């Protein structure tokens, strides 16, 4: 199957030619398959925000290529706006971009820029609002009268309304309380399931990524560090910890048990899995 997005040997240098020159991304590779839920994780300054701004052509690679469905997105720089409609990018704290008088108009900004018919825009706005769980009556309100969590939903709906092929979210839960976090992740998961959509979720919380992503790419110091399914990545939990990255709580419990002499599998990241692993161990011990 052809990848949806393929990043090849990407390097991006900020402030080239000045004393402040630095590579935010260095020789990075990444593939996103259609229908996949990919998690990208890394420290602040690991290059994740720079990387995702290349996926929709907001930044141009200093060297390397970004392919969308097999075509280099910079093949025709004049058409770069089309790429932005196909790869929807939700920035960190997206509620700070709201500017229209009503929620409806703000969600309609993206589809309007696409040059769609009024009817189609209307359909998309209503559908996007429904997807993020905004009640019908909020559409006529000013976005500035909403609560923080609702503002964020409006901002996400503004990107969803473009009906992008790939949805990329940069720390969509930053600054929310646990309940708000669960709700936002829930709606992303729901969108992914209902549409069989391709989703890229950037986060620095292992917990969040572990519970949602099919595959995880770990970045460190502007380079690829690790990649694989959650099981594969967390099987190398010790390396992650050494690299100063977070490991899910359950994995930490398993690792602690192992350090105390219990030969438990550490590639677990949910309560269920740890329970199964422990039960297996007991079963095994009983047989011995």
């Amino acid at each position, binding site marked *: 199957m052809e990848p949806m997005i393929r990043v090849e040997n990407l390097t991006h240098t900020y*402030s080239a030619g000045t004393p402040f020159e630095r590579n935010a991304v260095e020789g990075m590779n990444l593939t996103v398959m259609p229908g996949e839920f990919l998690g990208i994780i890394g420290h602040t300054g690991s290059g994740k925000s720079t990387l995702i701004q290349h996926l929709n052509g*907001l930044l141009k690679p200093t060297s390397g290529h970004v392919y969308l469905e097999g075509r280099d997105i910079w093949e025709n720089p004049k058409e770069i706006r089309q790429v*932005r*409609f196909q790869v929807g990018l939700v*920035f960190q704290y997206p509620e700070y*971009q709201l500017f229209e008088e009503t929620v409806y108009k703000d969600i309609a900004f*993206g589809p309007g*820029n696409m040059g769609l018919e009024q009817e189609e825009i209307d359909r998309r706005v209503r559908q996007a609002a429904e997807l993020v769980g905004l009640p019908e009556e909020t559409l006529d309100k000013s976005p500035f009268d909403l609560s923080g969590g609702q503002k964020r939903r409006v901002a996400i709906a503004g990107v969803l309304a*473009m009906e992008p092929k790939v949805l990329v979210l940069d720390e969509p839960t930053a600054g929310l309380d646990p309940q708000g976090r669960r709700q936002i992740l829930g709606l992303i998961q729901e969108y992914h399931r209902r549409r069989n959509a391709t989703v890229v979720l950037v986060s620095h919380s292992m917990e969040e990524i572990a519970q949602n992503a099919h595959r995880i790419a770990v970045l460190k110091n502007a380079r690829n560090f690790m990649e694989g399914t959650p099981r594969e990545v967390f099987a190398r939990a010790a390396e992650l910890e050494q690299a100063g990255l977070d490991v899910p709580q359950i994995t930490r419990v398993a690792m602690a048990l192992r350090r105390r002499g219990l030969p438990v599998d550490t590639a677990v990241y949910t309560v269920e899995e740890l329970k199964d692993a422990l039960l297996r161990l007991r079963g095994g011990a009983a047989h011995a």
Partner: protein
Amino acid sequence: MLKDITLGQFFPGSTLLHRLDPRTKLLAVVLYIVALFNATSVLTYGILMVVLGTCICVSKVPAKALTRGLRPVVVIVAFTAVINLFFTGGEPIADVFLLRHISAKGLVTAISMMLRIVMLIMGTFLVTYTTSPISLTDGLENLLSPLKKVRFPVHEMAMMMSIALRFIPTLIEETDKIMSAQKARGADFETGSLIQRANALVPILVPLFISAFRRADELATAMECRCYNGGEGRTALHVLRYRPVDLAVLGGFAVLAAGMVALRLAGL
């Protein structure tokens, strides 16, 4: 991108010029201007050029930066020179075509005017190049403090200036972020008619204003939480102190200015 705009012209460094007290530099530049406006002869301009040249060399500010600073005033300089060249009375140089409108006196005036403006700008720029905006504000506040006697809010003005300067980079970064976010939704800032482009700014300006107000509000709250109540009885973190070298530099410039006045009166 937007980050490349240099605001405030400060070139960090640790040369003698950088380490001088900001008040010294401000006063010295005033004296330098007095001297400059009293210079009338080749000798006096020569002295001032040596002084300015020495300061530039000591400051280690790249010559390119200084000439770049002159770019915006090239038109004014050229205009002044041309006007002086043609409209100063006196004996024409020769009786051919354009030269008949130009007198020797006009030529001298034009050149000295040009030199005067260029040297004035270079001198003042040298101060902003070698003094951080914050210490410049500190120096200004200190120098203007006698005005407090007539109820002029010197401290408040200085505080407003430092806060404004402090927020410029923050707001530039914010603008960058908002622009990217709106571009991600297909906003187009580069093409279209003038009106379309002006309209395209609304999605940037509205969030930017909101965020600026939010930041101002947060800052005000934070200041109140720490019981800030203006300049009355307030001490500074970095106390400005004149050192011997400051006095020497100031003395030097005072002599320079006095000397220039004396030379002019003596008709040299």
